[in-house]
């Protein structure tokens, strides 16, 4: 057991252990500490990374793209408006099939401007072609970052990976953590040896040129196939990781799901708080359970449908709005995944926690109580609601 670390420090430490070739660095709350800690490692000579300070996130991602295209391993960290400023480059990185690793410390995306946690930043980038892996706590943030490169770099995948953690709740909270030995991390990551890169003299190539209609679609299909292939690779890497860490990871975590009837589907640190509610309800004989989505891209639709088959009522918890007028992004994915089941559970969407509004164990007890009522009466009521508004009577 090491000293307690914050999520930001844990991820910065993983970066140090990996010793990547290049970091594109630009600070933004709440991810700022990551490039800060890493700058110290660079200054102390603990890594030999080329640390490139730039004037914006557009440029930090551009640095990563150029470096990775040249055959180097490149990383960055960002949040919120920083991720938004990278938006165009996220698509360039993914479509050029450059397995860059980005630590995304989730924060509400303006406006109104807010520094606290929700997923509006990374959910906005969910269609960019990046793999997205979410963490519940500092340990998972550390572990996910270490697993990212072996996932993204394999030739069958070759996609960039965004590892996400909850801003402040995870990034700025110190908690106990188990770190791996640096040698073990380096062996696990291995050397990065892309078959082709910008300056390879035997096979010089251009990266990111104009793509004409007769070829463009084929390239996008290849990218889509790579995203499908990523699912199996994520599980393979997780199995290897378990051998060195003893910690088990899947596409999602099932908590007390064996006989669960009333279920939450959610992401991130909120799942930890919800687990305490599930425990409490289980003591009272309620068949409560939850599924914590770890991998949002690729979305584990078939696997999730199997996990939810046989449940009676499901509340999907969205910590970003989405403005679809039809529920949040996690709800859209989950309900779509359930469509092919012969017998589907009742499904509702609860948008919560926007801009860092807190959610408590007691709130989940109310949600489970609503699910029990739905399971019993078959009356869903409003499908898509917002929880915890200060001006309203509390309806879940």
């Amino acid at each position: 057991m090491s000293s307690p670390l914050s999520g930001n420090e844990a991820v910065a430490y993983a970066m140090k252990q990996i010793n990547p070739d290049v970091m594109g660095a630009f600070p933004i709350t709440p991810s700022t500490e990551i490039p800060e800690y890493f700058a110290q490692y660079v200054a102390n000579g603990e890594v030999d990374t080329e640390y490139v300070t730039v004037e914006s996130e557009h440029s930090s991602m551009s640095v990563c793209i150029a470096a990775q295209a040249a055959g180097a391993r490149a990383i960055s960290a960002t949040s919120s408006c920083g991720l938004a400023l990278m938006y165009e480059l996220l698509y360039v990185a993914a479509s050029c099939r450059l397995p860059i690793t980005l630590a995304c410390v989730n924060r509400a995306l303006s406006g109104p401007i807010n520094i606290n946690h929700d997923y509006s930043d990374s959910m906005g980038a969910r269609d960019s072609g990046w793999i997205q892996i979410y963490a519940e706590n500092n340990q998972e943030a550390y572990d996910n970052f270490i697993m990212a490169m072996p996932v993204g770099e394999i030739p069958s995948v070759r996609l960039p990976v965004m590892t996400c953690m909850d801003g402040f709740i995870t990034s700025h909270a110190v908690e106990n953590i188990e770190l791996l030995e640096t040698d073990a991390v380096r062996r696990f990551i291995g050397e990065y040896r892309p078959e082709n890169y910008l300056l390879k003299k035997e096979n010089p190539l251009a990266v990111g040129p104009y793509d004409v209609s007769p070829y463009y679609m084929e390239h996008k299909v290849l990218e889509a196939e790579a995203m499908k292939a990523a699912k199996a690779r994520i599980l393979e890497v997780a199995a290897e990781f378990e051998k060195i860490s003893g910690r088990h990871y899947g596409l999602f975590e099932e908590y007390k799901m064996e006989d669960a009837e009333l279920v939450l589907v959610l992401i991130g640190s909120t799942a930890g708080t919800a687990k305490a509610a599930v425990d409490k309800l289980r003591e009272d004989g309620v068949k409560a359970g939850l599924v914590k989505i770890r991998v949002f891209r690729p979305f584990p639709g078939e696997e999730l449908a199997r996990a939810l088959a046989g449940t009676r009522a499901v509340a999907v918890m969205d910590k970003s709005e989405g403005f679809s007028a039809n529920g949040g992004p996690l709800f859209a994915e989950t309900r779509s995944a359930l469509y092919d089941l012969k017998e589907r559970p009742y499904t509702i969407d609860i948008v919560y926690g926007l801009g860092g509004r807190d959610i408590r164990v007691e709130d989940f007890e109310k949600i489970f109580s609503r699910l029990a009522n739905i399971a019993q009466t078959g009356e869903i009521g409003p499908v898509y609601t917002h929880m915890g508004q200060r001006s309203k009577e509390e309806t879940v």
Partner: protein
Amino acid sequence: MVSNDMVEIRWHGRGGQGAKTACMLLADAAGLQGKFVQGFPEYGPERMGAPITAYNRISEQRCTIHSFIYDPNYVVVVDETLLDSIDVTGGLKASGAIIINTPCSPQEMRPRLRGWTGKVCTIDARRISEEILGRNLPNTPMLGAVVKVSGVLESERFLVDIEESFQNKFAGKPQLIQGNLATLKKSMEEVQIG
């Protein structure tokens, strides 16, 4: 997930007083004693002097709850002027205690605590830090006081571990290490429990 032995602490301070740092140091020290810990701040628009809150959970099992703390066992008030604007005893468990940075005695403070009937502890953190460190840095003495009052950590071991934390934290300013240790010890001796 929720163990009965869990101790929850809520810190109230003003930006710049080091309440968050003290909260992190407590988590660090508790972690070194083999406890499961959380230490985290609640951020608003950050500015010097604005009220800030920070939280600790300390227990024998990992706590997965990541909400703020609404029903703490202990409340630490790093700046007594907050008593007028914030309901610092809100949710404080009857068996718990409030620890206030003030030159006043617990008896003098009680009438300002909106009917709180539990334990009131006071410590003149400002005087202690000014005497020993030459500056008003109340966070370390408040840390000493909360460790003493709560008994959540073994005191002797705490002082040994915290010295190590200070050595890391003040690597560039070694003159602060002994001063901060002295303020901790002094406040552990002086805290009044009433």
